[in-house]
């Protein structure tokens, strides 16, 4: 029982980390029909900028909880700069091309950003571990957890609800949903699809950067952190159904729990637990858990 | 009306619904060999659902479909095509990046038992001649080497029908063969189709909205309304039916 609780808690913490990043990925796919490999690079950039911002704030004497604001500002800043820049001046050149071509464009972007990050921040690690201690420790199921981990769960829930609410309960959100449903129909109904693309992409970037920014205190920020997150996020949104927000949430929880169960019960299987889940879902429900059918009609 | 003893197509008690929408209910239709049967009805009346069930795109919730006495209910479209039911589409279903001749060659290769060679030229073995002949029948041989994307809509429509003939089907289903053709050209177009089809397929079911065309070409007419057959008989009989007038010919064109 205690083991089950531990698996549940570990799985949820991991899932919430994944969810924030995967949510951005699935949103961008839903609206722009792009599987953005460079999403991981923006996660990394979010982490780097957050590290720099927190350090900057600290140098102004704004420590403690101000660090959280610094991290949030970092994510917003990355999104506002990189989102329009990438969407307007790069991706837009390739709209209408094959999905695979767009995938490769983002792969090229990933390569470019990897080196760009290195040119800006060098290879030395950055640390901003102070915020990790902000919420103290919490005992749960006879284990100690860091309060920050629970704050991450809160962040994921807030992000999920905010995005869901913005899409389903606001006028502009409904416009975005209309574009997700049918780009052509929305355009013919007078929706400014270009604008929707840019907003959705920027929001997606924001979520990637936010994931990176709030992970920064838990890791040493250095080259190479973008690769692993992108593959796992892909798995999450494929399991959940490309373009589906509920799917990203369920996918993240499934991946988180599968991984936690593997680590506690069968550590030697951790490496491919995620891919096995992904393959199984694709075989039995190729469209993901929350997606309309896309397998051959006949 | 040809009065063979055994029908080519025999559909009995077909039912299909999508959620609350009933697309077919108790549809029973028999088509004798050599008959030209026309299906009429307003949009959503169940004509296309019937065609889709016969060609295997939809599986009926209930009922059976037989081709020459053999049950084909629920088989895949490709299996049904191999057994001899071919169809054309309201919106032509073509490979628009291929030329007209290549589209025909695809249809011919699909029709031949050993048509899918790994090596042989698709045009070899007289297939190119057969492709030209079919294109010629529809008067589109001049466009043979042009990609479909450069062909006008009317020609695409004809090519779509020509492809359905590659197999010399036992039963040919034409979904609105003259839709998209202007009113004054409908008769010449239908003449051309019927002439081209003759000798390649004799039993034909077609969907049509223009009542003049229906009168001019059908041996028999079946009217659909709300998933049900409301009238079945000679064109004169069906088109003068009060219910048909109210729900079909008088209402939506």
């Amino acid at each position: 029982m205690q083991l089950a609780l531990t698996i549940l808690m570990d799985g949820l913490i991991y899932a919430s980390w994944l969810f924030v990043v995967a949510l951005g990925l699935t949103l961008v796919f839903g609206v722009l029909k792009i599987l953005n490999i460079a999403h991981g690079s923006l996660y990394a950039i979010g982490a780097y900028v957050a590290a720099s911002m927190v350090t900057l704030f600290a140098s102004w004497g704004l420590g403690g909880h101000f660090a959280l604001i610094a991290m949030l500002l970092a994510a917003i800043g990355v999104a506002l700069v990189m989102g329009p820049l990438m969407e307007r001046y790069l991706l837009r050149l390739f709209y209408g091309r094959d999905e695979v071509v767009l995938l490769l464009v983002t792969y090229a972007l990933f390569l470019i950003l990897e080196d760009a990050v290195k040119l800006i921040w060098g290879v030395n690690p950055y640390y901003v571990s102070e915020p990790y201690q902000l919420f103290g420790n919490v005992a749960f199921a006879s284990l100690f957890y860091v309060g920050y981990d629970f704050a991450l769960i809160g962040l994921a829930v807030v992000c999920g609800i905010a995005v869901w609410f913005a899409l389903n309960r606001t006028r502009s959100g409904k416009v975005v949903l209309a574009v997700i449903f049918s780009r052509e129909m929305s355009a013919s109904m007078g929706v400014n699809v270009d604008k929707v693309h840019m907003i959705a992409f920027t929001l997606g970037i924001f979520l990637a950067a936010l994931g990176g920014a709030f992970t920064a205190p838990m890791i040493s920020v250095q080259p190479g952190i973008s690769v692993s997150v992108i593959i796992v996020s892909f798995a999450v949104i494929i399991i959940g159904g490309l373009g589906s927000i509920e799917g990203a949430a369920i996918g993240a929880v499934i991946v988180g729990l599968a991984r936690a169960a593997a680590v506690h019960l069968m550590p030697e299987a951790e490496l491919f637990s995620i891919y096995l889940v992904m393959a199984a879902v694709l075989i039995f429900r190729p469209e993901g858990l929350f997606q309309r059918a896309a397998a051959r009609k006949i | 009306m040809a009065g063979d003893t055994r029908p080519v197509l025999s559909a009995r008690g077909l039912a299909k619904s999508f959620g609350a929408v009933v697309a077919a209910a108790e549809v029973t239709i028999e088509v004798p060999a050599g008959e030209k049967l026309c299906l009429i009805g307003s949009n959503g009346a169940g004509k296309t659902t019937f065609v889709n069930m016969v060609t295997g795109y939809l599986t009926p919730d209930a009922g059976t479909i037989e081709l020459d006495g053999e049950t084909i209910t629920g088989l895949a479209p490709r299996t049904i095509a191999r057994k001899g039911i071919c169809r054309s589409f309201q919106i032509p279903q073509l490979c628009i990046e291929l030329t007209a001749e290549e589209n025909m060659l695809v249809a011919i290769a699909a029709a031949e038992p050993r048509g899918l060679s790994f090596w042989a030229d698709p045009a070899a073995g007289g297939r190119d001649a057969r492709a030209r002949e079919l294109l010629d029948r529809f008067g589109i041989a001049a466009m043979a080497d042009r990609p479909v994307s450069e062909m006008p809509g009317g020609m695409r429509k004809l090519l779509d029908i020509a492809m359905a003939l590659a197999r010399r089907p036992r039963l040919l289903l034409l979904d609105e063969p003259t839709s998209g053709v202007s009113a004054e050209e409908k008769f010449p177009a239908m003449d051309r189709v019927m002439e081209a089809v003759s000798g390649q397929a004799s039993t034909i079911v077609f969907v049509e909205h223009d009542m003049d065309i229906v009168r001019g070409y059908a041996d028999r007419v079946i009217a659909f309304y709300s998933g049900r057959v409301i009238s079945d008989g000679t064109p004169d009989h069906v088109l003068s039916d009060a219910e048909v007038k109210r729900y079909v010919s008088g209402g939506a064109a």
Partner: protein
Amino acid sequence: MSSPPVPSIGLRRLAGRMLAAAAALTIGLAASSAQAQETFRVGIVTFLSGPAAESFGVPARHGAEFLIEQLNRGAAPAPYNQVGFGGMRIEPIIVDENGGATKQVQELRNLYQRENVDAVVGYISSGDCLAVAPVAEELKKFLILFDCGTPRIFEDASYRYVFRTSAHATQDNVALARYMRARNINAGTFSMINQDYAWGQDSRSDFVAAMQQLYPQATANADLLPKFGAGQYGTEISALARANSNVIYSSLWGGDLQAFILQGAPRGVFQRSQLVLSAADHVLQPLGERMPNGTIIGARGAYGLMSADTPLNRWFFDGYSQARGGVYPVQAAYRVTQALLGLKAAVEKAMAANGGKKPTPEQLADALRGLEWDSPGGLIQMKLGNGHQAIQTMAIGRTRWDAARRQVVIEDIQRFAAECVNPPANMRSQDWIKAGFPGAKCDTPGN
């Protein structure tokens, strides 16, 4: 496909370009051999990008650049005070190791055949070392592997042109277990966390085997294998906390190790269990006070803060620190330095024998085989693998945050003689550990 393979124009153009490339190359080849007497070209392959860049790749590059600059000025202390290699200026060609073994094989060929380097010093990843060693052998070109850990290279094959000038990973784990035994660390139960690839798997099995010899009663609890670059260790830390063992062993390195420590320390696991790390000196400077006090660490040699106080080491340690703005040299910088010093010794020994000409790869190989030379990390002896594999002094110590000096210091250092923690020649590492370390010579303090 809608068209023929290649109309003649495309083909001719391609052929023309290839011939032009070939011609340019031949000219380049002739030109470079004319200057060959004055310079010695060394290809240096190290991670400049990817996850290993920060911890190993770039420090190695800095170490190589520092040393080569000093050697070219003749500024190194005796016996390394001759300019360059035997009077020849050293010309480094630095290549990124990131990108996988297939790429390394290709780049190694390019270094030898296109860039005409006289020797290559490189490779941090074991996979890369395994892949490139036969290539150098096949091309009959001189290759020094400077860092990679796997014992398989010279245990599974024998080479004439390939050398490794640093000890393999076996000594890391044997020394760690010996240190624990010598300090009487309570290790009745232990848990492990290692990356799920060769380095982690091999380190894990060496450590388990060494523990079975030195702590035969000990039982292993959690045995975790997160994937390389996982970044998130919350679940693993829960598992370690649940296991609550006396000792937590890990061969994690770089960003993974740093993340593991950052996430594990607040949850108290390192207070309840003694943390022992097989290769961790490279994270002391970046982590600073975040490094848990009392952690038992190895450095893959007597390096950095655990190095011996010799004039050569003092020169290197201070010179490097000064050049790098106060960052002192650790493992990778030491290892590339000992490789280049070994190469220098071999070149000069070969030149003494051949009348001062630039040595051929065969002469270099003959000179380096079985050689011994001093390095900042101590004496390097090419004793294993028929004189192709080095053994060296090993050190283990405990960390402590020194608030006054604002840096992590290492205390309670114990140095192990090379032959105490390395197998004898002609014995495989795993067999040697499982047989109870036959022939180990531990009585001489290795200083």
